[in-house]
């Protein structure tokens, strides 16, 4: 019995050599052939030409040499415009509700209960306020941008964008679909990273994940616009200020796209060289978008997941923000220790210690970087008459007030320019970092995605600052 078994195993092993290396292929071919035969016998098709007529005509227009790209840019611009315009009012409403009324109510409530001041400060001024801030600035744009984007996807247009853009991305060692995840990144990097699931080639997907942070996200646009208006718009006559500062913001966004392509190319040639790579891009037939379903899934899958992660990270960060401004050792706050310690380095790269501290403690969301900077500036320089108290983030009522405050903090045009660059090139927010880890399950790639942009940002800011000072 034992001998028989060994004989069979031996025979099988020897036969393996004769079958050769390609038997998996042959197996697959025979399965396809079998399936094809069954289809031929049993399935009847409608007249094909008729069924594909509309698709073909539309495809001719959207992938045409002359009309393809303009249609793409116009559609994208419309999506952005609707997002910006549409989110204005709800953002203000949410802000006045959560950061205004509800905050006041909570404060009043804690007063009436005579809760110790530090608990009230830590939980309400710190944790709650950070959370409320993140929700009010993050939720409306995302709730508008993502459904619009998903509608285009559902209709079948987005794969055509990937098809049009593939040449550019192929040269950068990436996949055409990275054009989509990049656009998604303009809304939110965490959502952009999740969207890379559409790229089924391992190497190109990693490239798209690591470079998504170069898309200026929803949380950074307001920072860019504010700083550009104050510092760059301020350099030119008032009638040109609007267009010049808008140009500067678009310039930073374009710089982000260029850097993302260059980085993609660099990654595909170095650290990601050995990762497996395949390509295929399906162009599904067009179909009427399912509006309600799209709204529902994009709200659940994209908006709420991202928002929930942001909230989870914002609350503890709020505690930290409040604490560094309020915990004193030998009469000096933790924030001041850090600012004084890092200031020489920060000056070297054309920023200041306050900015760097703000980027460290406001890691959960780019939205709260500016409020944190304003709060820290007031606390650090002991300014009077502005702000809401140590550890309480705030916004000023007008641009000129913000400008005065920042200039009191020692800001120059160089600081403004470098802040814009650093806002583009720094670590992703903690929500995105966490999402990258969830998607890659790799500490190595998460660390690379986190530190690569910081290093690039520091180097670029350093060069700009030093060359600026040469002249």
């Amino acid at each position, binding site marked *: 019995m034992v001998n028989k078994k060994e004989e069979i195993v031996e025979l099988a*092993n*020897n036969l*393996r*050599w004769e*079958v*050769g*290396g*390609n038997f*998996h*292929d042959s197996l*697959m*071919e025979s399965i*396809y*052939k079998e399936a*094809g035969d069954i289809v031929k016998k049993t399935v009847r098709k409608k007249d094909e*030409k008729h069924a594909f007529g509309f698709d*073909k005509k539309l*495809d*001719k227009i959207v*992938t*045409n*040499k002359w009309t*393809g*790209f303009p249609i793409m840019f116009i559609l994208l611009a419309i999506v952005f415009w609707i997002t910006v315009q549409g989110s204005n009012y709800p953002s203000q409403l949410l802000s006045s509700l959560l950061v205004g009324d509800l905050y006041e109510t909570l404060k009043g409530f804690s007063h009436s209960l005579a809760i110790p001041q530090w608990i009230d400060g830590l939980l309400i001024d710190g944790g709650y306020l950070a959370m409320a801030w993140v929700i009010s600035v993050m939720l409306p744009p995302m709730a508008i941008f993502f459904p619009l984007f998903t509608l285009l996807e559902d209709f079948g247009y987005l794969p055509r964008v990937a*098809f*049009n853009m*593939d*040449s*550019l991305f*192929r040269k950068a060692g990436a996949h*055409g679909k990275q054009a989509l995840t990049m656009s998604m990144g303009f809304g939110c990097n965490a959502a952009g990273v999740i969207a890379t699931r559409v790229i*089924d*080639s391992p*190497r190109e997907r990693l490239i798209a994940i690591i470079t998504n942070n170069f898309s200026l996200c929803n949380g950074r646009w307001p920072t860019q616009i504010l700083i550009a208006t104050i510092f760059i718009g301020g350099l030119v006559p008032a009638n040109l200020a609007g267009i010049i500062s808008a140009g500067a913001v678009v310039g930073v966004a374009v710089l982000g796209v260029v850097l993302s392509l260059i980085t993609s190319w660099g990654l595909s040639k*170095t650290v990601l*060289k*050995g*990762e*497996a*790579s*395949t*390509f*295929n*891009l*399906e*162009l*599904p*037939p067009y179909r009427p978008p399912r509006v309600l379903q799209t709204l529902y899934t994009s709200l659940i899958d994209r908006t709420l997941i991202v928002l929930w992660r942001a909230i989870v990270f914002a609350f503890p960060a709020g505690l930290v923000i409040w604490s560094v401004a309020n915990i004193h050792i030998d009469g000096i706050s933790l924030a001041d220790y850090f600012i004084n310690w890092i200031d020489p380095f920060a000056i*070297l790269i054309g920023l200041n210690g306050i900015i760097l501290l703000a980027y460290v403690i406001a890691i959960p969301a780019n939205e709260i970087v500016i409020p944190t900077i304003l709060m820290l500036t007031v606390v650090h320089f002991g300014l009077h008459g502005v702000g809401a108290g140590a550890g309480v983030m705030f916004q000023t009522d007008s641009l000129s007030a913000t400008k005065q405050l920042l200039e009191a903090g020692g800001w120059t045009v160089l600081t403004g320019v470098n802040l814009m660059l650093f806002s583009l090139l720094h670590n992703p927010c903690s929500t995105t970092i966490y999402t990258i880890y969830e998607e890659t399950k790799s500490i190595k790639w998460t660390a690379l995605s986190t530190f690569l942009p910081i290093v690039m940002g520091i180097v670029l800011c*350093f*060069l700009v600052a*030093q*060359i600026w*000072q*040469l002249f």
Partner: protein
Amino acid sequence: MNPQTALLIFGMGMLLVMFLFYPEKGIYYRWKKAILSTERVLIEDALKHLYDCEYRKVNCTLQSIAGNLEISSDKAAKLVQRLESLRLITSENSNLFLTPDGRSYALRVIRVHRLWEKFLADETSVPEIDWHTQAELKEHKLTPAQANALAAKIGNPVIDPHGDPIPTSEGNLPEHVGVLLTTLKTNDVAIITHIEDEPKTIYSQIIALGLHPGMQIRVIENSQTRIVFDAEGDEKILAPSFAANITVELIRDEEEIQKEFNTLSNLKPGEKAEVIRISNALRGQQRRRLMDLGVVPGTIISAEMVNPSGDLIAYRIKDAVIALRKNQTDHIFVKNIEDND
């Protein structure tokens, strides 16, 4: 600090980083390479060399070990002593032979080497030229159990990407078959079964010509000075010393000979073609993905549309429209068919 000094220090810092981490030439890479040549590595490389001699039926000596491992004769002599004391080899008139233990040890190392090459070829994008070098490092690191797990993961392959058989876990190898490319006569048709990956200089030139195992060739001219042959539609010329690194197997059955070498990339929008086969140049995931999409012999494919830059074409494959890049469609053989409707 004034800006000039700051920029200068920065520049010097960048140079230092380059000096330390420059790929293959930097200090870090050299150091990593240096710590790899331990005693175990030397023993395993020597056994592999001896096995290779045995397979090719030539004699092995202390000098050939020294030459192959790039070590001094003194060091080689010590190594041979050590191998003898481990009863892995025996010597007779300065010729060295493997003992049965030595042979099975050598086969275990070769198994890992070839499995790793197969893994690199199928599951990664590591370029062909680096497979051997990386496998040389890996073969000393995997235990037999890990090697079996790796084999199971990549579908228990029997042939490595150079066409060499992979020893089974029991240490079996099939009889050596095939003939050298240099022995073919004009008009012989054959399939490349093996391309020797050492020495690297010759190997890199052979793969630069686009030759790979599984490729069909037809000899056009074979003389003392050169051998000219058609390799799947392209004419190639090799010096006999290069051709001696290629092993082929003759095709005798006329029906198995593929005569047309038109590729999918030549298909113009609106034209239809039938797939003949996917070239062996597409391996692993690339090949599997295409087959998953239905690119198998007999499938009818039509070219549908071109993107605005003109370098990406979408094809209708089994009623789905799928864009494929040229580096893929160059390796899909098709025959054009007339549009009947």
